[in-house]
């Protein structure tokens, strides 16, 4: 199941040229661009690992693309996103954030129902990917529907 956090996530994956154009737009707006990655696809997982510090003071998208390339090489099977922070007065927030790398297979989510007191039901989403320990999810092997990998 294709997860869709961030901008452009309902579009086909952006090409590198498109990513470069978006990053250049962000830089031209005066936003600081950062590269982040994770292997936990849960929708409430909003704070991803940072790939280096946000890039303050860069003028050209090539610098950010360099970091994206490096991050992809290090974590080919992770979600990688580019975030652009707007630090102008009163905003100080993420102005743009989009995924630039996805694992080859995305196994999706299971809906867990928990029987609580008085026959109430609590629901929770369980990403199949998180059945594996962090760092071993979306590994070299393909994902079976139940989230277990064929070959470790």
């Amino acid at each position: 199941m294709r997860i869709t956090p961030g901008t452009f996530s309902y579009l086909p994956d952006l090409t590198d040229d498109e990513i470069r154009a978006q990053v250049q737009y962000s830089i031209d707006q005066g936003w600081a661009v950062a590269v982040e990655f994770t292997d936990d696809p849960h929708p409430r997982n909003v704070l991803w690992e940072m790939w280096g510090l946000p890039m303050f003071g860069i003028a050209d998208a090539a610098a950010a693309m360099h970091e994206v390339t490096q991050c992809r090489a290090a974590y080919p099977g992770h979600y990688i996103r580019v975030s652009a922070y707007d630090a102008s007065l009163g905003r100080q927030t993420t102005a743009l954030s989009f995924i630039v790398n996805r694992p080859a297979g995305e196994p999706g989510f299971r809906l867990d129902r928990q029987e609580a007191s008085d026959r109430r039901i609590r629901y929770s989403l369980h990403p199949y990917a998180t059945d594996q320990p962090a760092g071993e999810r979306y590994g070299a092997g393909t994902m079976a529907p139940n989230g277990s990998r064929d070959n470790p």
Partner: protein
Amino acid sequence: MTAHGESVPRGFAMPVPSAGGFRESADSADAGGVAAPDLLDPDVKVDLAAEEQALRISQLLDRLDAEFIGLAPVKDRVREIAALLLIDRLRSRYGLTSSRPSLHMCFTGSPGTGKTTVATHMGELLRELGYLRKGQLVSVTRDDLVGQYVGHTAPKTKEVLKRAMGGVLLIDEAYYLYRPENERDYGQESIEILLQFMEAHREDLVVILAGYADRMDTFFRSNPGMASRIAHHIDFPDFTLDELLQIGEMMLEREQYRLSPAAREAFAEYTALRMSQPRFANARSIRNAIDRLRLRQARRLVTAGGLIARGDLMEISAGDVRASRVFRDAGRPVPATGGPGLS
């Protein structure tokens, strides 16, 4: 990377394109595929002058001539780079390959010959020629590149390199990066990262090393990889007397001063004398001399008092020039070690 392989190339620069606009560009990309440029027939002849006009190269070179006095080797090299650009454009129109030349440079020369000044303009120049996307200048010295403890240097150097991408990285007095007397110096690490970036990001970044010729030679001798990765070694010649006078006039004009006819003569004498004295730093000495002229003019005007017109505020008199210590010292033998500077 696999996730990116299958999508169709599309161009849009706004973060939220309207659905209609996006659909349109997607359709055109699907229909046309990769648009092959219209190649010219091998027998067709192209008017070189018209092409040059279109790229506005001659205007650019004229401006270079007007802004910089002397510096023939620099101008020649820029002219060559501009010519190559023109020829490459034409080659690509005939379907011939044209790769971007390596533009890393090394500027050597005596103090005050304009190495740093030219480097600051080089970014803009290369941007206008279409070799750089942004053309900003990031000027650094050893302190900005080399860290203080293990593991500090690499991120620091990379940070600087990233800031310079799309433009020019000027490393002033680059020879300080390498300190052979201390084998545990982190400078070497910085040099290695620099080399790696200079090679891998040739399209994105122009590195200019600037420094005095003799020390630069030592630096290159101990880092042969650096010397071979720099395509353009440009030596900045010392300015001649005429050039220095022109530079002086230009500096004064920029600061809205002017020399009286007598002062112009005195200034020429002053410059000739100053050139023969030790610690002469070409244009930098001229700039300092002009700063002192302004001081003396101000003191003269304040001491005189009375009514002052606009012209008086602008004009530098012969007396202002002749009050310089250079004239007093001219007759005497020059002391081997002197004060911090001549006034």
